[in-house]
C-alpha cells in the first residue's frame, strides 16, 4: 500500500470513527449492564451447542419418540387438571392460538401449576408448565404469549429433545433410568457452556412468533421487564461482570433480554407504523384469550403509542386499568 493511499484510508477511517462516536453520542447508546460476560459466554457456547446437537443427530431417535415421552408426561398432568380452572382454560386457549406456529408433531398443552415463583418450563413432547404466580406477574396477554412462545421455542428448536435423547434411546430397550443418567451426565458437563445459547435461541423464536402474531412485539421485552421488576433488587447485583457467576448463569441477564427485545420492537414499530397490535391487559386480568375477548382499546399502533403499564407490587395480581 503506497503512502498516499494509506493516508487517505487512515483519514477515511478516522472520519468514520469520529462519525460513529458522534452518532453514539447523539443517540446516547447505553449498555443494559455496566459489564457482563454472559453474552460473551453465550457466543462461545454456540460451537459447543453445535457439538451437542451432533450427538442428537447421530442418536437413532426422532420426534415421534419424543412425542411418546411427552404423552406419558401429559397424562400425568392431565390427571391434575381441575375442571373449571380459569387459569387452565386461559392457557389452553392461548396455546391453541399458538398451535398454528408450531411445526413439530406434538399436541401442545400448557398446564397451570400452583407452586414456585413466576416461571415457565418446557418438557419434551409439547408439555409446558406455567406457575400461577407467573400469570399474576405478567402485565398483559402479549407478555404471557411471549413467555409461552419462549417455551415453545425450546421444544420446537429441539432443546428438550437434546435433553432427553439418551432417555428416548433407552426407552427402546426399556431402560429409562440408564438413559436418564446419561442425559443428566451430559447436562452436567455441557449445560453451563451453552444453556445461555439455547435460551437466546428460544428468545429469538418467541420474538419471531410474536412478530408474526397479532400481539404487540413489545410484549417480549415487557415480559422480561416484568420478571426483572418482580426480582427487584436482586438483579442489581449483576451490574458488574463476574467470570464464574456469568459462566454458570443458566440464562442471559433479564436486563439484556429486556433491552434487546424492547429495542427490536421499537425498530419494528418504526418500520410498521401503520400496524395495529393487541396488548391484552384486560384479557389477562379476566383470563380470557384474544379469541374470546377482543377489546378495542387494547389495540395499539405506532411506535409512540404503547399502552402505559404501571407496575404494582404484589406477586399474584395483575394491574387493573383505570376506570
Amino acid at each position, binding site marked *: 500500500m503506497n503512502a498516499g493511499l494509506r493516508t487517505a484510508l487512515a483519514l477515511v477511517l478516522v472520519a468514520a470513527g469520529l462519525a460513529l462516536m458522534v452518532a453514539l453520542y447523539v443517540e446516547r447508546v447505553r449498555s443494559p449492564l455496566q459489564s457482563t460476560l*454472559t453474552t460473551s459466554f453465550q457466543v462461545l457456547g454456540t460451537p459447543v451447542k453445535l457439538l451437542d446437537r451432533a450427538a442428537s443427530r447421530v442418536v437413532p431417535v426422532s420426534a415421534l419418540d419424543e412425542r411418546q415421552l411427552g404423552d406419558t408426561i401429559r397424562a400425568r398432568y392431565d390427571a391434575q387438571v381441575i375442571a373449571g380452572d380459569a387459569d387452565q382454560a386461559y392457557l389452553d386457549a392461548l396455546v391453541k392460538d399458538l398451535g398454528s406456529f408450531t411445526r413439530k408433531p406434538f399436541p401442545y398443552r400448557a398446564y397451570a401449576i400452583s407452586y414456585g415463583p413466576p416461571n415457565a418450563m418446557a418438557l419434551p413432547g409439547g408439555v409446558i408448565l406455567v406457575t400461577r404466580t407467573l400469570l399474576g406477574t405478567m402485565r398483559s396477554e402479549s407478555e404471557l404469549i411471549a413467555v409461552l412462545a419462549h417455551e415453545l421455542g425450546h421444544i420446537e428448536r429441539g432443546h428438550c429433545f437434546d435433553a432427553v435423547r439418551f432417555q428416548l434411546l433407552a426407552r427402546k430397550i426399556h431402560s429409562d433410568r440408564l438413559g436418564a443418567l446419561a442425559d443428566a451426565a451430559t447436562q452436567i458437563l455441557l449445560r453451563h457452556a451453552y444453556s445461555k445459547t439455547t435460551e437466546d435461541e428460544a428468545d429469538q423464536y418467541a420474538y419471531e412468533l410474536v412478530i408474526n402474531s397479532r400481539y404487540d412485539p413489545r410484549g417480549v421485552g415487557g415480559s422480561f421487564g416484568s420478571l426483572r421488576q418482580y426480582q427487584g433488587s436482586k438483579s442489581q447485583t449483576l451490574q458488574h461482570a463476574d467470570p464464574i457467576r456469568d459462566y454458570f448463569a443458566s440464562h442471559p441477564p433479564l436486563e439484556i433480554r429486556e433491552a434487546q427485545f424492547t429495542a427490536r420492537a421499537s425498530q419494528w414499530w418504526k418500520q410498521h407504523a401503520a400496524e395495529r397490535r393487541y396488548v391484552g391487559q384486560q384479557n389477562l386480568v379476566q383470563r380470557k384469550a384474544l379469541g374470546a375477548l377482543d377489546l378495542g382499546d387494547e389495540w395499539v399502533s405506532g411506535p409512540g403509542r404503547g399502552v402505559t403499564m404501571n407496575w404494582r407490587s404484589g406477586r399474584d395480581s395483575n394491574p387493573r386499568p383505570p376506570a
Partner: protein
Amino acid sequence: MEWLIAIGLIWLIVRTWGDKGRIKQLGERLRVVESRLNLAGRPDETSARRAAAATAAPINAPPVPPEPTPVRRAEPPAAHSAATPAAPIPTSTPSPRAPAAPSAFEERWRQLERLFMENWTGILGVAVVVAGVTFIGIYTALRLAPFYRFLMMVGVAALLGGTAFWLRRFEHWQALSEWLRSAAAAIFLFACAASGGLPGLGLQWIDAPGPALALLAVGISVNLYLSWASAVQTFAWLHVVLSMLPLAIVPQSDVSLGIASIVALFGVALSFRARWDQHLLIVIGAYVLYHVAWYLRLRHDLDVPSLRLFAAANAIAVFATAALVHYRKDYASQKPETWPLLVHISNWGMLGLSLFLYRPAASPMRVVVLVAAGVAAYALARRARQLGVRWLHVCDTLTGQALVVAGLANLYLVVINVQFIMLAIFLECLLFLRLVIDEGEDSLGRVGWFLTNCAAALFALGGLLAAAKDVALGNANALVLLVGAAAATAAHVHLARTHAGRLRVLQTGTFPAATMGWLVGAIAIIALVNLAVRSPADEVVTMETVALIAGAVLLLVSRAMMPAGLLAGSGAMVIAAHLISWWLLLQRMPWEPVPLAGHVVPLGVLAAAAIWLAGSSGLRQLSIYLAGIDLALAAYLFFNPVSPVMPCVAWLLLSMLALELANRIERPSAVSALLLGYGYVVAFVLAYALVVIQTQAYVGPLPARMLIELFALAVIAYWWFSQPREAVAQHSAWLQAHPFFLELGLIALAVTNVVEVQAQWRPLTWSLVALCLLVPPAVRRIDERLQLYSVIFFWASVANVALIMSTFESPSAHWYDRPDLMSLAAIALQVAYVAASHSRLSPAAAQFPGGLGALDALAKRIAARRNLWVYYPFFAGLAMFLFWRFDRSLLTLLWVVEAFAMFVLSAVLRENQFRHVALAGLAICVGRLLLVDLAEADLGLRGLIFLGVGLLMLGMNAIYNRYRARFQ
C-alpha cells in the same frame, strides 16, 4: 546482762592488746621472709611497700607485670606477688626441669583469686564487722537505753578507728588500717543515722528532726572526709556510697534529697583528681538508685512544681557535673576507652532518665530544655575535640543529637501535626549531617548519613500512616511532605555538588549514595497519596496539578544537577502519580467534564513533561506508556457517562494514532508507541467482550453494536495492511504480533456473524465468507492462510446445515426466515465452494506464525487429501440434512439426487472416487427403495419415487456412456 557484755568487750580489748606481742613476733618473721625474697628477686624495692600498693590497687588495675626472673628461678611470676608472702622459699638449687606454663584457665582463676583477695576480702571484712557490731547493738538494744547503745557503738567505732590509726605506723598493716578505718566510719555513720530513728532498730534517742539530721550530717561528714582522704578509689566510693545509704533509709524529703545530692556531688568532685572512672560510675549509679527510690516514695507528692523542679535541679547538678569530668587532657586519646566511655554514656543516660522522670507535664519547656541540653552536649563535644578526646567528641556529639531529636519529638506538646514534627526531625538530621560531614570524623559522618536517611524514611512512613488516619489533614500533611521533599532535594543536590567524595566514603550498604534521591521520590509519592485520600470537598488544587509541578521540578533538577538516585525517585513519583490518579479517577466515577479535565490534563502534561525531560533513559519509554494509558483512561472517563460503548471506538482510533506515531518517530520510542497501539486493540477486545457485545441499542435503523463491529473490522484490516518503516517492521514486537492480526480479523468476522446474523441465515453467511476467502485476489493480497480459513468457514456452514438447520424451526411465515430455504441456498453456495476449491484450494504454501503449528499441519493435510477434507464433509452433511429436514418418504429420491450429483461431479472433476461413492450411495438407495419405500409409501408417491430414482439411474448411465473417457 549489760555488765556481761561490757566485760566481754573489755576482754576483747585486752585480748587484742595481748596479741600485740604475738603480732610483733609475726611481723619479725615476715621481715625475715621478705628479706629472703629480696635477696632472691629485687633488692632495690621493699616487699612491704609492694604489698601495700598491691592491696590498694583498684579492682580493674592491671596485674603487676612479672618481674624479670633470674634463670635459676622456676616459679611462675604470680608466685612472687606480695599478696602471697607465704610463697615457698626458693632453693638455691635450680630445678632440673622448668615446670609447665599455667593454662589459660589456671591463669584466669589466679587473676580472679587475686582480685578477690586484694579487694573484696577487705570490703566483705568491713561489711562483716559492721554486721557483727549491728547484731551486738541489736542484742544490747534489749538491755541498754538507746543513748547508751549509741555511745557503745560510737565506742566501737572509736576503738576500730584508733586501731586503724595505730596500725598506720606499720607499713605491713597499711591495708588493714584502711579497712578498719572504713569500718569505724561506717559504724559511726550507722550509729548517727540510727539515733535519729531507723525503723525497728530501737536505737533512736533523738526525737527532734533537726538534731537528728545534724547528727546524721556529722556521720556523713566523717565518711566524706575519709573518702576525700583516701588515696585509692575503692575507699573513696565506699564512703560516698555509705553516706548515701542511711539517707535512703530515713524518711524522705527535699532535705534528704539535697543532702544526698551534695554527697553525690562531693563524690563526683573527687573524680576530678584522677582518672577515677570506677569511682565515678559507682557514685552516679548509687545516686541514681537513691534518686529512683526517692522518686518512688514521694511520687504522690510530686505534683508540687517546686518539688519537681528541685529534684530535677539536683539531678542536673550531679549529672551535669559528672559529665564534665572527662573534659580534661587526662583523657586525651584517639581510641575509645572502655571505662570512661561506659561511665560517660551511663552518665548521659542517667541524666536523661532523671529529666524524663521530672519532665514538666505537657509543657513546651520540655522541648526547650532537651534541645538546649542537646546543643550544650554538642558544644561540649567540640570542646572534647579541642582537648583531643576523640571518643568523647563522638560520644557527646551523638548524645547531643539524641537529645535534640528527643526535644523535637516532644514538639507534639506544641504542634498538633505529627508530620510537621517528623519534618523538623528530618531537617535537624540534615543539619546534623551537614555539621559533622566537614569534621573529618568518619564514624560521625556515617551516623549522620544513616540518621538522615532513617529520618527521611520515617518521615515518609509517617506520611503514609497519616494518609490512612488523618484524612482531614490531607492538604496540610501533603504540604509538609512536599516541603520535606524540597529540603531533601536541596540537601541532596548540595551534598552531591560539594561533598561527593565524602558521601562516597560515608555511604553504607544499607543506604548507598543514591538513597536520598529515592527517598525524595518516596516522600513526594506519599504527599500525593495524602492529597488523594482527602475529601473532594477539601480539594484546593488537584493532586495531579501538584504532581505536575513537583514532578517537573524534580525532573528538571535531575537533568540539570544529576544527583544520584534523584532521576529514579522522580520517575517513581511520576509513575505513582499516574497510578494514584487512575485509582482516584476510577473510584470517583462518574465525572463531569470540567472537574475531570482538572485531573486529566495535568496528568497528561506530567507524562509529556516526563517524556521530554527523561532524555534517553528508560523513564522516557515508561512515560510514553503512561501518556498512552492517560489518553485511554481519559477517553473512558469522558465518554463512558454519555455512552459506555464510545470509549471502545475511541480506543480503536487511538490504536491507529499509535500505529501512525510509531511509523514516524525513532526507536525505541517507536516500539513503545507500537506496543501502546497493541494495548489499545486489546483494550477494545476486552471492552467488546464486556460491554459492546451486550449492547442492544440502535443508531438509526442499524444496531450500534454492528456499526462498532464493522468499524473494528476496518481498523484491524488497517493494521494488517500497514507496512511500517524498517525500524519498526524489523522489531520483534512487530514481527511476532502483527501476523496475528489476520486471525484477529477473521475471529472478529466470525463473532460478528454469530452475534448479528439470525441463526437461519448463518449457514449462508459462513458459505459466503468461505467463498470470499478463496477468491484469488484476496488470497494474493492478504495471505495464503486464507485458503485454510476458507475451509474452516466452509465446515462451519456444512455443520450448521447438517446439525442445526436440519431440525431448526421458525414460526415466521416469511420465505427469508424459513430454515429449509436458507439451508438450500447455503447448500448452493457450498456447491459453489466445492467447485471453486477444486481449482483454487492449495493451502500447502501457507505460512503460519508461531503458535499455530497445528493449523500448518492441517493445511498440509488438506492440500494432500482435499477430497477427504472438503468434498466428503459436504456430501455427508447434505445427506444428513436431507435425512432430518424432509419427509422420510422422499428420502430415497433425495439421496439418489445427491448420488446423481456426485456422479456428475466425478465426471466434471475427473475424480473416480466420487463415482465410486455415488454408486455405493445409489446401491444403498436402491436397497432402501426395496426394503422401506416399497412397504410404507402410498401408491402415488411410491410411483413418483420409483420413477424419479429410475430416471436418475438412467441419467447416470447416459452420462457414463457419453463421458466414458472422463471416467477412465
